[in-house]
């Protein structure tokens, strides 16, 4: 797939924090690319520099061979953007907003088609201020598509949505990909990143820790499975037990997590150790490793922390 967006050495210093500390990434045409990281990792700043909203201190950005220095208007005409918070006039209706924003572009999609796509037909003539959070979010998404963009940037598109709202938004993102658009999104939900993204970059403290397909990232862990032992109440200190088991044990809340490349041999050893330690536990689970584990291994912290 041809490279559509190339970012090299991107940096941004805010008065009291180095928000982005040298980011390189490439996004290929037609893929869904995710920036995954906890709040404050620099995802939004990185995205806003690519969108031309924030001027980088250093670094290069090219989008379809165009640069912000020379082709700003042309880039703006070809990208669609959903900001983290989209603020519109209180008393504009979705139909009017789509017509108004559509008028700014050389190429535009039909208002009715977009209203249909984001399921806002029955709210088409309601004032923006009366829309629910999910409806406003869907309108923001429709506005990002109003110019039939080649690239769509979505900043935390599912933040604040209920599970059903998130699913339907995922469907819209998949539909965008189906139409051949390139999508770049930020998220701090690892399930979202895993479900939507062809490739992703894990960001923390303004730097990319790893990037690749979700499968590559998880495979890179070398620990395809995690055995979880849950307790009633807070998990006890696992140090003695880890020594007895001869394997690393991480305590997280009321759970011990034991990463293992091979659950088949781990489980008998685990039960032997439990028996000899007279350990009182609640349940045992075996699950596949996730992006959460990748993040945990890379930073020693959970995404949600």
């Amino acid at each position, binding site marked *: 797939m041809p490279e559509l967006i190339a970012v090299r050495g991107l940096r941004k210093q805010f008065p009291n924090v180095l928000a982005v500390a040298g980011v390189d990434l490439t996004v290929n045409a037609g893929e869904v690319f995710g920036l995954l990281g906890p709040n404050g990792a620099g995802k939004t700043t990185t995205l806003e520099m690519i969108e031309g909203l924030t001027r980088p201190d250093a670094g290069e950005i090219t989008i379809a061979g165009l640069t912000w220095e020379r082709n700003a208007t*042309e880039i703006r005409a070809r990208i669609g953007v959903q*900001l983290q918070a989209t*603020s519109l006039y209180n008393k504009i209706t979705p139909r*009017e907003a789509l017509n108004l924003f559509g*008028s700014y572009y050389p190429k535009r999609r039909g208002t009715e088609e977009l209203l249909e796509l984001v399921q806002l037909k029955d709210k088409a003539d309601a004032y923006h201020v009366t829309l629910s959070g999910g409806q406003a979010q869907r309108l923001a998404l429709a506005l990002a598509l109003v110019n039939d963009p080649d690239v769509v940037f979505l900043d935390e598109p599912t933040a604040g949505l209920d599970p059903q709202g998130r699913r339907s938004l995922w469907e819209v993102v998949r539909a965008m990909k189906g139409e051949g658009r390139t999508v770049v999104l930020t998220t701090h939900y690892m399930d979202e990143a895993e479900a939507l993204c062809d490739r992703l970059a894990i960001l923390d403290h303004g730097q990319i820790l790893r990037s690749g397909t979700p499968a590559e990232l998880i495979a890179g862990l070398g620990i395809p499975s995690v055995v979880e032992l849950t307790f009633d109440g807070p998990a006890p200190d696992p140090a003695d037990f880890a020594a007895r088991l001869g394997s690393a044990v991480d305590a997280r809340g009321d759970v011990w997590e034991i990463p293992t490349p091979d659950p088949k041999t781990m489980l008998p050893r685990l039960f032997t150790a439990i028996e000899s330690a007279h350990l009182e536990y609640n349940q045992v689970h075996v699950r596949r490793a996730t992006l959460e584990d990748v993040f945990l291994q890379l930073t020693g912290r959970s995404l949600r922390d």
Partner: protein
Amino acid sequence: MNLPNPFKLLALQFRSEWRLYARDRGAMFWTFAFPLLMLFGFGLILRSGGPQTLTLVRVAPPRETARDVAFVKALQDSKLKVLTLTPSDAKQRWEKGETTVQLESAGDGYRLKLNSYLLAQGQVVAQAASQAFLIAQSRLNGMPEPKRIPYVIESPGHARSDNYAAFLVPGLIGLNLLSMGLFTVGMVTVSYREKGKFRRLAVTPLPKWVFLLGQILQRVTVVLVQTLLLLLAARFGFQITNQGSYLVFGALVIFGTAAFLAMGFALSSTASTVETYGAISNLAFFPMMLLSGVYFRIDGAPQWLQKAIFILPLAPFLRMLRAVFNDGGSLAGETIGLAIIVGWTIVCFAIAVKRFRWV
């Protein structure tokens, strides 16, 4: 790449701004009805009853003779208002200093008593009374009436200067401009920036000047409509019309609009939240509104205060607007006032251009 024609976009933006503005009933009320309510409210309460008349206090004689009746008739024909009071009432009024001229019977004739404090007015009344006396005499004797020289009372400038509404109209026009600049432009700009409305626009290819100019044009048309409404209300509610050139009047309104628009944009760059801006704009708004002579003259204020407030744009603006609207004058002698307005426009515009932020 064929971007849409910016002038077409400007027209769309302007139309959209107006449509959204019209949906905000509260804003509409404050903008259009409030100045009219002020004008009718204060204009009617403080109205002094049309053109001034000269009043003559007549001490009622013990018995009205035919000559007395003829004299009173002749006085009234001379457009003098004759107020006949009992001797004690007349004495009381005289002692309060409210009487300009008092007409008393003296022997078989009359005597005029003139208030020394109001000598200028009193002399006019006395002369008119003397004329009326001659006329009354002639009428009683069946002789031809002597020719009377008619008079009108008019101040050189303020054709209806005794009408408070006439003073208020330019004041309200100025106040509209001030609140347009500080609130609808400055406040809205800060709020759009704070809420991120500008950010959403900044990722579209809409040229920024189109958006700003669309907003400015909408605000300017609002001010023009407000001014027109006030002029119409003054004309049909109070018979007050512009005494000067409409061209000069219009030019002044445009100068003022530019100054207060620039001031709003400049002030908007000083605050990042609506709360901060509210404090800053009130700090600018209230002294100007209260001290610049919107509602009342500030002639009584200390000289230093009058000089200080004249440095701010509203006071000189109102003085010039009144010089034209009320006095029918030109701007020939108003170089300093004009310089202050233009100076504010340039300084604020420079600050706005240098410091204006979209995000």
